[in-house]
């Protein structure tokens, strides 16, 4: 057990070191969701967004939940990129030739991505607070939001890592990533409530796990426990199933890639 921990902490520290050495990339990664989506987009659509439709005091408070889950999405889907590069330049081979538990590499990546995502979520909620968005469910609600975010993130990171192990060239990886990200955001309740979407879009959005997550996070911010609890219960079950599916697929891809 001690050895397991030694492996995982050493591997995770590697990601931390790398992040801290790429100062610009780090800054950009942390700041992007706040800057572009929350502050710019949120304020831009203040008047265009109809309060009757969004059922929220202002658009930023409506958007906050969407930005939180979007961040989880982007981080999760990008979570496997570093493993892809490791596979391509042979570093992964070097790691695998050591007597580590086969799962340590994966777990360290999960640990790192989840930690960074959680920090960003807190930062987003903090900036939203500065714009007057106060979570109706207080600190416990924030903890619940983090939990939902992490559960969603685990499944997404597993998908990303499965892709990293399965693609033949990294061009494929980035194409799929680009292809998936934006449609997933627009076909969800991140920017507009489901009820206000055209029929075909709201139909598709219902199948999007992002929608489930957002529809649980939003009442936690805007309404309160009585409204939020049923959604939260629902989303935790959905995410559990999602995670099990993704982890299973990811493990298979990993084993196949390791020959």
């Amino acid at each position, binding site marked *: 057990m001690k050895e397991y921990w030694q*492996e995982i902490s050493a591997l995770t520290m*590697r990601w931390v070191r790398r992040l801290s*050495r790429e100062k610009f990339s780090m800054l950009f990664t942390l700041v992007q969701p706040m800057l572009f989506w929350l502050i710019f987009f949120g304020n831009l659509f203040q008047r265009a967004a109809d309060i009757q439709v969004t059922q929220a005091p202002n658009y930023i408070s409506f958007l906050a939940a969407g930005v939180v889950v979007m961040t989880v999405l982007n981080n999760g889907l990008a979570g496997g990129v570093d493993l892809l590069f490791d596979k391509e*330049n*042979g570093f992964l*081979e*070097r790691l695998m030739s*050591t*007597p580590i538990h086969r799962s340590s590499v994966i777990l360290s990546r999960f640990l790192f991505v989840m930690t960074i995502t959680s920090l960003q979520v807190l930062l987003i909620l903090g900036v939203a607070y500065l714009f007057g968005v106060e979570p109706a469910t207080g600190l416990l609600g924030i903890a619940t939001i983090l939990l939902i975010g992490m559960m969603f993130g685990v499944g997404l990171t597993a998908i990303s890592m499965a892709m990293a192990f399965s693609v033949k060239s990294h061009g494929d990886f980035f194409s799929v990533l680009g292809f998936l990200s934006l449609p997933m955001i627009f076909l969800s309740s991140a920017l507009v409530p489901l009820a206000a979407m055209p029929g075909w879009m709201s139909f598709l959005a219902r199948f999007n796990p992002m929608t489930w997550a957002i529809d649980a996070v939003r009442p936690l911010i805007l309404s309160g426990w009585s409204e939020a609890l049923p959604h939260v219960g629902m989303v935790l079950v959905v995410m559990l199933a999602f995670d099990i599916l993704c982890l299973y697929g990811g493990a298979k891809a990993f084993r196949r890639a390791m*020959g």
Partner: protein
Amino acid sequence: MDRATAITVSHLCKTYDSHKAVDDLSFHVYAGEIFGLLGPNGAGKSTTLRVLITLLHPTSGTATVLGHDTVRESDLVRTLIGYVPQERAIDRFLTGREHLELLGALYHLTKEVAAKRIAELLRLVELEAHADRPAKTYSGGMKRKLDIACGLLPDPKILFLDEPTLGLDVQSRLRIWEYVRMLKTRGMTVVMTTNYLDEADQLCDRLAIIDGGKIKALGAPAELKITLGGDIVSLKIKETARVGTLAAAVMGQPAIRSVNATATGLDIRVESAEKAIPAILEAANRLDCRLEFIDYHRPRLDDVFMAHTGRRIQDETPNAAE
């Protein structure tokens, strides 16, 4: 002489889809020797190496390292071996020292033991001055040295090197050869893949010539050359179009063992040069071929390779998928 066996490979096969990368390979590596797998790209050397270091499972057959099966006891094997990969498997953002510290943790060394070994290794590969700079600032030769330090960190019984001097300048190559010889004096067993004939010839105690996934020859370099026997006569003619006809004409002469045509001439294995050369010159004269160049020499490893595989090591393999 009864020597301990470090590695035993028995009827090893590895198939990818329908391509047989490794086809029924069997050989031994003795403890304390430098063993080479020599062959062109796509021959199956790296695949064989990866099976030995437990990164690949054989399709059939077995590999035993220091008495442990590479599939069933892979964890144990990994604690006993070191690996220096072909590509510069380096993280650009980590310093040399951090690489070694990371590996130290992955081999479950305590901080004290790791620190001591790291200091020793940095001194050994002469990277002390650069140890705390990020790896992206290292030259090709320095990255190779870091690779070697990483491979030696677990103090392994066997070190596996995959094309250790590929793409290096002459100085660095000689340096690496020095290290390898020094490792042998410390009692380490070294297994390396290479497609450099001079490397195989000068460095390896024993080698296996691999082509198309099969072993074509196995033994010490000197042995392989002597067994080939005879001399090699090489010639180039001006009328390159007539190479084929000349080859046919020479083939029929006495004292000729085999003829290999190249783009510009012939490489002929003969019983003895003094008997064969007059006959060869006569054949060339009769066909009106003017000689641009002719020489003869004792068999070199190059010739051993060609004799066993039918071509020179630089020629492309049809399906080079290693």
